[in-house]
């Protein structure tokens, strides 16, 4: 089971206009930079009128669950686990 973090985090997001897909590709957290290799799942959840995008991603041995608040455009790192 992953460790709950619930901290603000810096994330780089790339948008590809051809495939019309947006995906995070870089996570900067606690002084380290992680390049995302794989997006496992991208799902969305409404919390009241706020839509959150959740990205479950892997950067080599590390799994991150990131959430993107579409109202304030902030990213949070919800959960982390290592293999």
């Amino acid at each position: 089971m992953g460790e709950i973090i619930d901290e603000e985090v810096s994330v780089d997001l790339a948008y590809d206009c051809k495939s019309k897909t947006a995906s995070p590709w870089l996570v900067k957290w606690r002084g380290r930079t992680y390049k995302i290799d794989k997006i496992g799942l991208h799902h969305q959840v409404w919390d009241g009128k706020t839509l959150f995008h959740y990205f479950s991603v892997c950067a080599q041995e590390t799994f991150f669950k990131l959430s993107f608040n579409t109202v304030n455009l902030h990213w949070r790192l919800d959960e982390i686990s290592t293999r």
Partner: protein
Amino acid sequence: MMFNTSLPGFMHVDLNSCFASIEQQANPSLRGKPVVVGAYVTDKGCILAASREAKKLGIKTGMRVFEAKRIYPRVIVLPSDPAKYRFVSKQLYEVFCQHTDNVEMKSIDEGILQFNPNQVKETLWKIAEKIKIEIKEQAGDWLTVSVGISTNSYFAKLAAGLQKPDGLVEINASNIETILKNLSLESLPYIKHGNRTRLNCVGIYTPLDFFHAEASILRAAFQSVVGTRWHSWLHGFEIPGVSFGGRTPREIDKTIGHSYALTKQTSDDQELTSLLSQLVEKMGKRLRAKNFSAGGIHVYCRLGNGLPWHHGEKLPNRIFANPDLFEAAWKILERRPKEEKVSLLAVNVFDLNQTVGEQISLFESKSQKKELAKALDAINNRFGDWSVFQALSLGTRGKILDRIAFVR
């Protein structure tokens, strides 16, 4: 009666190891490993789903976490994440709707697709193969489904269960007897201990006996029209308006409730008040979302000595607002044996009715109360759950988890 020889028009699609597969989809490092999703991750937590790797080891849904750990100590236990599962379920539904507009989701992980076989351009088999690919592309590459095809929804469901994971089976007039020959009565959908006993009483011991039985024998077994229906279903015919597994609207909303298993048993009234208040908030919101009022309330406790204690009662007036629901539930909970600690607390309401045309009270303005409850629900819908809540729930906010109800 002969088995229905028309082209198959029903497809049952079942997502394999639903919750566990979705967790493996989200986190690729879990793939290929025994993973279980528990209602709680503690040892006594009930397992809601086991990955195919865990199933191979003998770990099953419904076991306790400690039982799974006894089988495989390194099993990965995850808490459930209903929002994730609902999202994937919605994606499945969207894939299904690309092929037919007659889709019925039977539960979060299975759906029935109905086609007019004379109007579809390709065989259901081909459509099923496409659906499998589309689910991988649109929902997740780790997700697999078992698909059953037949001339009615009953055999489509049976077919979907025959080959797991990633199966595709068609049941038709040419293979029905071969398929039934290899099954036991209880491996048929909706035949469990009770129905098996009924069938045994009229000399039916195998699915083939069941299949060949005359309608009059089945009527005698079930002692109702249900026997005649079984006769039609077993010969591949669908009965319009009567579905297997799908609950009628009356059954769906017989009760609404919530429960919470305490991590630490308690007999402290203050703590129980707070938990009960939070359970009532969740229950009340669902009640009002369906525009229901309740005519009765029931409280269940599992006590520290392992014994259950419960009591339910009809209410003098129909209620829907949280303070009234709480008051009625608390009155019942106060009667529990106080010397015993509580390890599980559940509350549900019954005798549900749409709140139209209800009696107006002379002494109290129900409409005011209803408007207030609606306004509070609207605030929570807009700003997120627990934006406003009863002060009694303070301290336990967020303890009662979101759940996905099991349905038949």
